[in-house]
């Protein structure tokens, strides 16, 4: 911040700071999320569209306002705020009252990102900080926002909504059993099932994920290990692994949030530890926690431990002697 005041700056390596690439990456991820967002709008009706617009617009607005008031460099043009806003809207219920989306975006952008020094320094996934904050603060408002995924019928109803439970919610309350859940496979795959705005359609999310993989934005390591760990644990506990893979925010979280450059480990071994941890926490919270879904919590939990994971197996500087404290 005050480097420029000191005049001559001598810093240690690495010096590489590629700012040019950031907007492009954000754009590609934004585009990759479009299939899921459009599916959400189609299945859930007009409220979903409103929440998406409110999410993106308010996130950009909050970032501009905070940086303007505090006289920071204004960074809305790097596209990260818009992406955070989109992710907040996608992880919230489709028909949640829009003020919740707007406030979740404020928490995501302010305490989630800017206080750490901006993009690249935040330790938690900002969108999930915003989402979790909203989920913990207004649980009843959020649960009222889960509506039936009726497609055209939902649009015909307009702003009237029909509440609907999510499959994971039904599993938690014991209304559906642990086995013979294959009737959910189709709806979970295509998206005509209750859930958060952007998480219900597995196929739309996978198309986006493939796009990210081919664009070279993400690698398969974290998502694959995360999904396999969850599925493996499901089999171990006599649950339906396919149901667990397709339901909730697992695919959205695994491909679009667990792979966030800033909040995930860099080294391959660290990434595997991180992804296994994600899988364990997600499954454990789904099965034994008081919340139906654990993806957001487990990503935030593992975010806490990323620097610690990175510390283990850190390369020793040549000639370094471990000093005894």
């Amino acid at each position: 911040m005050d480097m420029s005041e000191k005049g001559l700056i001598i810093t240690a390596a690495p010096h590489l700071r590629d700012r040019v690439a950031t907007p492009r990456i954000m754009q590609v991820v934004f585009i990759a999320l479009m299939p899921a967002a459009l599916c959400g709008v189609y299945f859930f009706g007009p409220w979903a569209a409103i929440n998406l617009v409110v999410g993106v617009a308010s996130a950009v607005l909050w970032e501009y306002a905070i940086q303007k008031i505090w006289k920071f460099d204004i960074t809305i043009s790097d596209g990260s705020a818009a992406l955070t806003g989109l992710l907040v809207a996608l992880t919230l219920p489709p028909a949640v009252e829009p003020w919740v989306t707007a406030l979740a975006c404020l928490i995501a952008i302010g305490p989630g990102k800017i206080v750490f020094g901006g993009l690249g320094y935040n330790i938690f996934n900002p969108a999930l900080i915003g989402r979790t904050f909203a989920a913990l603060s207004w649980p009843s408002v959020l649960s009222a926002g889960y509506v039936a995924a009726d497609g055209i019928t939902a649009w015909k109803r307009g702003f009237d909504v029909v509440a609907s439970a999510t499959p994971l919610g039904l599993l938690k309350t014991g209304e559906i059993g642990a086995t013979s859940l294959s009737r959910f496979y189709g709806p979970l795959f295509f998206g005509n099932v209750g859930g958060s705005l952007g998480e219900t359609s597995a196929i739309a999310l996978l198309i986006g994920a493939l796009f990210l993989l081919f664009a070279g934005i993400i690698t398969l390591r974290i998502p694959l290990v995360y999904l396999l760990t969850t599925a493996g644990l499901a089999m171990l506990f006599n649950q339906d692994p396919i149901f667990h893979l397709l339901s909730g925010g697992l695919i959205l979280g695994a491909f679009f949030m667990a792979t966030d450059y800033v909040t995930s480990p860099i080294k391959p071994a660290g990434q595997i530890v991180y992804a296994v941890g994600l899988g364990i926490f997600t499954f454990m919270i789904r099965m034994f926690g008081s919340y139906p879904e654990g993806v957001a919590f487990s990503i935030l939990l593992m975010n806490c431990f990323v620097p610690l994971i990175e510390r283990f197996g850190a390369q020793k500087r040549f000639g370094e002697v471990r000093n005894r404290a």
Partner: protein
Amino acid sequence: MKELFIILLSTILVNNYMLARIMGTCPFIGVSNQFDTAMGMAAAVIFVMSLAAAVTWMVQYYLLVPLGLGFLQTVSFILVIAALVQLIEMIILKMSPTLYRALGIYLPLITTNCAVLGVAVINVREGYNFIQAVISGTGGGIGFSLVLIAMAALREKLNTAPIAKSFQGFPLALIITAQMAMAFLGFSGFNLEKLFGL
């Protein structure tokens, strides 16, 4: 045996003294700015907590209960913990003067670390037997240490971040703690009995 595992996991994750019960914030914020100091503090807290759990349990059931002095619980527990911390202070001073200097004021502050007193009081409230009390103390210490060390690594990573002056140090540490506590809320109501098939 399963029961002990449940107590251990519960005190480490579900009822983490720092992030779920919000006890021991002072040393948590105070010593988490350096990784090595945090490691030393972590070891000291685990040691003090398990020992305090054992000693306070004996004080409760061999002294306070037979003599009908239950109302002296808080005072006597604080006294016992203070004596234990003094002992550890002397041991660390002998064994590692560097760590002693690094821990500075925070070592004697373990005395007033409400997490240590919290372990002692909660053990009595839960009606734990001696083994359960010691496990609960050790778990509490491990849970506290886990988040303390993670916090130290986080803050070390943020050393190079261009944080606004008004947020540097203490304020940001509190914000991070709040966000960690939000993440740990995922464990709230965690049904460990079901996990272990009880």
